[in-house]
């Protein structure tokens, strides 16, 4: 709706041209495709995986244990929990300036509406006014971003609260121009002052000066990728129900219940054991329900203390997007030295990450980025430094694959740039620079387990890569205004299972049925199913006997967050360890009663005074490296690009993913497909847009922000899990799967870039060009740089 003026002007002319092409007879064949629309055929997919019947229910293809509840509509999310009588509803009031001071707030118009009960602001906070992102729960004076919470309206219905929140006005002073992009921050040298060691900066190996001097060619370039909204389908939502004696029941869609207690205590002064936090599930998280989920719970708890009644809030999508940050945009300026055969002699990079208005979680993300560069490539002379930009935008936070995704994206763009400069095939250049098993990365990780060569060769073969390379070249020679592109991307993703501890608590009931409570949160990743499978496996009982209970802070308070692609594995490991505790206890009874059924065993156990409650905590010992293992994968993407309009059709993607020995192939294939699609959306259609004058978020809803829909997915999607590749260092031989596949979305971006490049070269433009993600229709078309004089009919 807004801007994109040059694109629109180009489009008018180009569409007229397309129209004439579609009408005129006897045109040169290379022009004809400009006059036809791409007809998207029905999509299809293939899946390949391996199960191990000896281990069932582990490794089996089992839909989620909640599948039927979900497809029947019975599954209960926080907003489905009935409100107790007397519940009030909260709606945020947000600042609409990017930088300045709050002078006063006028809520009188809101409070005049019947049914509006109160307006809460900073003065209502009993103790410390700070949320988990280091930003005030309600602003007291300083405004640091457009969208910062300044208060909350309470009303008898959510609709009324939402309406009333729009009637609250605020007065500001000292309104200053703010910084609203990573490029502006770099220009203004607006960086957070940090200890570079905290983000592993700089990473240095060998001597880049020597490497450049030994190179056939040295050149510079720039690559960047933007922000991304988590876009969990379920909004931010929470409810607090007060009980007696300052006790509170909290229902929250959160991935980080273990932090919730301490932040509630800090805001209210009430000790943590008064809060019972219960989480059944989240309707998606992706990191958006980590620290972001805590502020609303603090706000409604403060409201509940003041009004002594249940309080509930469901944030509108607009309120959510204006208030909370997402993925950290990243930009890299690089200088690289190469030999003419494609060998990389030296790489020097300055990497920038946009932390937003508050640094919050950015240091670990920037650190992850720096230590996962340079993806799969062994570059002996290497120097990378990082800086965190400070802007007046939302404070960015963990978003599925934080740090890892830009690390892969930035590196792969540099590799493709190198190939373009040298006129070599990118896949040849990439393979040439691969690590070998046993090599050490610039940050000291020893690649003891390297199977990228196998994966690379396998996916090239199964995707008919060489054949399709030739077909794409043929197509491009025969078509001037539509081009195809092909790209192959490897991903090396470091996993750290020592960062979080997780627990499982099991209770066997008198009838032999089992209830498991674990410290992870079901956010759609199938964790409850994997924990149930692990429990069934270790106890040797049917899956149907097992029930997984909602998270409860009274049972498993001390645990890590659900994130990092390690939680399912750790909770399954805890379930197995807990099961072993019980098996040990009943071993003597089992020996004496070898033919006893499970129910009989339980009765005997009760009779013998053996406790039917047992637990285990898994806390992997810290390691002297950043990662205890690596996840490897590769993807081939083929796209078709309309040079005149910028529209892209993703024709085919082939993915080969090393999942180790999958605990549940249905769940893991689903994770690969879903994560890949989130990565595809990141590079294709999802773009954060801000008003450059005051930082107002323009992409504040589904009208401007576009996650992929069913028509955006690859027409042909083939996913294979690598066979016969158990992970020697993780539970049951499995590997992380939640985040790594996002990085493979980079292949789609590079395929588009290749298609654009093909058209540019054909029309005499430089094949080397700067092209930042996302490849939206306007970005693509502008990069094609079509001159109207080129729109001819002969």
């Amino acid at each position, binding site marked *: 709706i807004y801007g994109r003026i040059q694109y629109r002007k180009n489009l008018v002319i180009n569409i007229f041209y397309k129209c004439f092409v579609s009408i005129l007879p006897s045109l040169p064949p290379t022009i004809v495709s400009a006059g036809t629309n791409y007809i998207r055929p029905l999509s299809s997919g293939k899946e390949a995986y391996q199960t191990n019947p000896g281990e069932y229910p582990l490794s089996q293809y089992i*839909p*989620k244990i909640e599948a*039927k509840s979900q497809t029947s509509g019975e599954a*209960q999310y926080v907003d489905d929990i009935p409100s107790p009588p007397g519940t009030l509803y909260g709606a945020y009031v947000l600042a609409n300036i990017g930088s300045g001071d709050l002078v006063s707030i006028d809520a009188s118009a809101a409070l005049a509406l019947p049914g509006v009960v109160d307006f809460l602001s900073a003065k209502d906070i009993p103790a410390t006014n700070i949320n988990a992102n280091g930003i005030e729960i309600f602003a007291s004076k300083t405004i640091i971003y457009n969208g910062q919470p300044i208060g909350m309206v309470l009303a008898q219905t959510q609709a009324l609260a939402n309406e009333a929140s729009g009637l609250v006005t605020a007065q500001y002073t000292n309104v200053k121009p703010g910084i609203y992009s990573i490029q502006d921050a770099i220009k203004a040298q607006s960086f957070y002052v940090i200890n570079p060691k905290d983000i592993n900066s700089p990473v240095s190996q060998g001597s880049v000066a020597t490497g450049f001097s030994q190179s056939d060619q040295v050149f510079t370039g720039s690559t960047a990728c933007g922000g991304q909204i988590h876009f969990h389908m379920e909004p931010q939502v929470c409810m607090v129900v007060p009980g007696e004696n300052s006790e509170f029941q909290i229902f929250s869609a959160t991935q980080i219940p273990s932090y919730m207690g301490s932040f509630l205590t800090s805001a209210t002064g009430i000790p943590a054991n008064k809060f019972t936090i219960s989480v059944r*599930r989240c309707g998606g998280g992706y990191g958006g329900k980590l620290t972001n989920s805590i502020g609303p719970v603090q706000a409604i708890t403060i409201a509940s203390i003041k009004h002594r009644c249940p309080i509930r809030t469901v944030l509108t999508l607009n309120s959510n997007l204006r208030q909370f940050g997402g993925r950290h945009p990243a930009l890299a300026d690089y200088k690289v030295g190469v030999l003419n055969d494609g060998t990389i002699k030296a790489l020097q990079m300055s990497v920038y990450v946009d932390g937003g208005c508050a640094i919050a979680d950015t240091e670990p993300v920037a650190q992850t980025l720096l230590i996962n560069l340079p993806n799969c490539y062994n570059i002996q002379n290497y120097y990378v430094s990082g800086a965190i930009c400070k802007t007046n935008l939302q404070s960015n936070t963990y978003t599925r694959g934080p740090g890892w995704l830009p690390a892969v994206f930035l590196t792969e763009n540099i590799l493709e740039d190198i190939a373009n400069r040298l006129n070599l095939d990118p896949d040849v250049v990439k393979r040439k620079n691969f690590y070998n098993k046993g090599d050490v990365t610039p940050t000291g990780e020893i690649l003891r387990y390297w199977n990228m060569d196998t994966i690379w060769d396998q996916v090239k073969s199964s995707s008919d890569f060489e054949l399709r390379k030739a077909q794409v070249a043929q197509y491009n020679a025969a078509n001037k205004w539509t081009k195809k592109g092909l790209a192959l991307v490897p991903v090396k993703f470091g996993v750290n299972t020592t960062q979080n501890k997780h627990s499982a608590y099991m209770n066997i009931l008198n009838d032999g049925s089992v209830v498991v409570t674990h410290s992870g949160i079901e956010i759609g990743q199938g964790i409850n199913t994997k924990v149930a499978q692990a429990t069934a496996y270790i106890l040797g009982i049917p899956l149907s006997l097992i029930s997984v209970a909602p998270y409860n802070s009274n049972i498993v308070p001390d645990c890590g967050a659900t994130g990092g692609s390690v939680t399912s594995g750790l909770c399954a490991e805890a379930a197995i360890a807990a099961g072993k505790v019980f098996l040990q206890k009943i071993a003597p009874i089992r020996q004496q009663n070898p033919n006893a059924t499970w129910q009989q065993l339980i009765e005997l156990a009760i009779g013998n005074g053996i406790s039917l409650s047992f637990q285990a905590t898994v806390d992997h010992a810290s390691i002297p490296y950043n990662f205890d293992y690596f996840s490897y994968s590769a993807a081939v993407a083929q796209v078709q690009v309309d040079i005149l309009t910028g529209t892209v059709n993703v024709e085919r993607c082939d993915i080969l993913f090393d999942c180790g020995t999958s605990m549940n192939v249905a769940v893991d294939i689903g994770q690969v*497909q879903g994560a890949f699609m*989130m990565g595809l959306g990141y590079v294709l259609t999802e773009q954060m847009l801000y008003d450059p004058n005051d930082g107002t978020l323009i992409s504040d809803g*589904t009208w401007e922000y576009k996650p992929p*829909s*069913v028509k955006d997915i690859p027409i042909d999607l083939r996913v294979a899990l690598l066979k016969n590749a158990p992970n020697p260092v993780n539970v049951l031989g499995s590997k992380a799967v939640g985040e790594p596949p996002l990085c493979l979305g980079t292949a789609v971006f590079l395929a588009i870039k290749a298609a654009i490049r093909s058209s540019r070269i054909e029309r005499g433009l430089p094949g080397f060009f700067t092209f930042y993600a996302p490849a939206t229709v306007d970005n693509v078309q502008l990069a094609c740089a079509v001159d109207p004089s080129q729109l001819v009919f002969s």
Partner: protein
Amino acid sequence: QQTLLHYLRSPDVRLTGTKLGCGEGGCGACVVTLTHYDPKQKKLVHRAVNSCLFPLCLVDGHAVVTIEGLGNTKNLHPIQKTLASCHGSQCGFCTPGMVMSLYSYMKAHPEQEKLDLEQCLDGNLCRCTGYRPIIDAARILESSMNQS
């Protein structure tokens, strides 16, 4: 001013299977089936609507079917059963909308030889599955409908 979604999820009605996602007609989590009798065509007309936008007052003269109306965990509708077994539901929040879009389309096109169920999912966003297993479920439903 009250929307159909708000009414369905209200304490008096308590049909919370239909979800509030974006609240602005862009995500499809709120889709339900609306049916009315068209005297000109002399038949029932079924359509999928975004209940988050649909004013309750305009439902006058219509029948509304929500996900609860199709089946429950003890007795699933074939659409629900197929979507579950294809692992077409991860976090599950888009799922009721997906089911109702499929149902609405199938009700609206009972005699069509080859249904394109992929077409009817255009207004339903899913962030978890990448759509592949949902489309696979739709294909199975297509072929079973063609058989019957």
